[in-house]
């Protein structure tokens, strides 16, 4: 494990997480070990409440593990850092800042001079196709636009790792599809290590290099599917969402994964 720890970007070793609610304590994540390589796009799917968000928060440094440790580049993660950017489902844009000011937030805090910041902001505004909205406030934007700004904000900060917690969960179905395509495109242009949490099996297969299926609470790893490595859906990244989603390979995979999750839900009586 130690060798893997040194070579992988993110490592979790025997991580367990408890959380307290009304005097009772639950085991949210149970002894999970995982290694994520640099440049990998890893997606975690699982039934509701399986601890996937909690697990991601461990990597983000926002939650402390009850036992086990997490590492980035071999060094223990003890708290949040700009190197591990987080994108939230509820956007979390600063309402008192404009779109441009939100995007440049991390840079400004680090003391990067204005000229450089402006250039970076300009680049990302173009990338997320929000030209003309630099001076708008978040409350004037639609959900999809807000999330694009949130992603740009994190991207602009150049973290090595992106942690995304159901980022498209609050968007309607059409916007969601477009955002997935955009994210896929962004990932091709600027490769980072990504840990992505979602409910949606479609989304997981479309975006992920590797899909990790978690069990119901307490969360453990049920199965890992290597989409890119085993070339399960060839040329996936170059294709449009609608074309990918209807291919037989995709549908087979989807059936497999969904079957596993459904079994979890029924077995553990979650619904």
């Amino acid at each position, binding site marked *: 494990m130690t060798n893997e720890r040194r070579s992988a970007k993110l490592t979790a070793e025997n991580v367990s997480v408890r959380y307290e609610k009304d005097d009772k304590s639950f085991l949210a994540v149970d002894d999970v070990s995982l290694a994520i390589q640099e440049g990998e796009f890893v997606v975690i799917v699982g039934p509701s409440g399986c601890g996937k968000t909690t697990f991601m928060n461990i990597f983000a440094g926002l939650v402390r593990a009850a036992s086990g440790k997490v590492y980035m580049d071999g060094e223990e993660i003890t708290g*949040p850092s700009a190197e591990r950017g987080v994108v*939230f489902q509820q956007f979390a844009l*600063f309402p*008192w800042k404009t779109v441009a000011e939100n995007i440049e937030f991390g840079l400004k805090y680090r003391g990067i001079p204005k000229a450089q910041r402006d250039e970076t902001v300009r680049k990302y505004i173009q990338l997320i196709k929000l030209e003309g909205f630099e001076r708008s406030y978040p409350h004037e934007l639609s959900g999809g636009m807000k999330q694009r700004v949130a992603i740009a904000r994190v991207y602009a900060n150049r973290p090595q790792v992106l942690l995304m917690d159901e980022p498209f969960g609050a968007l309607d179905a059409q916007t969601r599809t477009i955002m997935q395509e955009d994210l896929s495109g962004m990932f091709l242009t600027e490769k980072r290590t990504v840990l992505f949490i979602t409910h949606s099996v479609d989304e997981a297969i479309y975006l992920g290099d590797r899909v990790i299926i978690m069990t119901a609470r307490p969360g453990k790893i049920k199965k890992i599917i290597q989409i890119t490595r085993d070339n399960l859906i060839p040329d996936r990244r170059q294709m449009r969402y609608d074309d990918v989603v209807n291919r037989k390979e995709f549908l087979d995979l989807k059936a497999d994964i969904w079957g596993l999750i459904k079994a979890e839900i029924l077995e553990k009586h979650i619904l």
Partner: protein
Amino acid sequence: MGANKRGPLSRKTILAVVSGAGVIGVWFALTAVFRVIPPAFLPPPQNIVTDFLRILGSPYVGHTLIGHTLVSLQIVLGGFFSALLIGIPLGILMGWFKRIEAIVDPLFQLLRPIPPLAWIPLSLLWFGIGIQSKIFVIWLSAFVPCVINSYTGIRLTEPLLVKAALGLGVTRQRDLLREVAIPSALPVILGGVRIGLGAAWMTLVAAELLASDAGLGYMMQMARRALEPSVIILGMLVIGILGALMARGLRVLEKRLCPWVKEEEH
């Protein structure tokens, strides 16, 4: 019951005018025509206007109307601004740092239920009849809402925004306070400022009624002794108008400083 527009005037405006005219009409009738109400009790409406012009130009118990107004304003603004300067930072620190809250809060809660006006006699005893005693009480009345609102504003900071800032590299407590908590709390803090101004203004009037030798409150007290209700009413109107103007001014300031806040109805 929609808006029935007859020409340029809506039904609402017509009713408003009718209402206003009605009140003045009844007033006029009772005081000037039927003489049911004596002028020492309530003057006819036209007297208000003539007396207004009178005290505008020549001094009444020491100052003209404008003179008294300026005296009052000076005292209010003095107490008010010093309350802001101490109250807002204190509230912010109390809201963010639990230790500071633990030390200051119990004392604050003990003193808070006592209406600022109740401090006036004590204040007179301590500071004499000069300006300091009035400023102290006014300061107190604006201080409390500033602290409370600043504290509440900071406490209402959305944890999600703090997490977002953490993930963007802001890790130190005081940086989080500066970058997230304070901007997020600004609308509430300004609300407290507005309340504080209203409270300060009210306290000033009371203080001037009790112990003063100039100012609008003093003017009204003197007018009462001299049985000149029109001057009293004029004082009341000036106080009301000034209070409304100050509140309006603060609202404009709020909109300027917080352009991201959505409009509320009232």
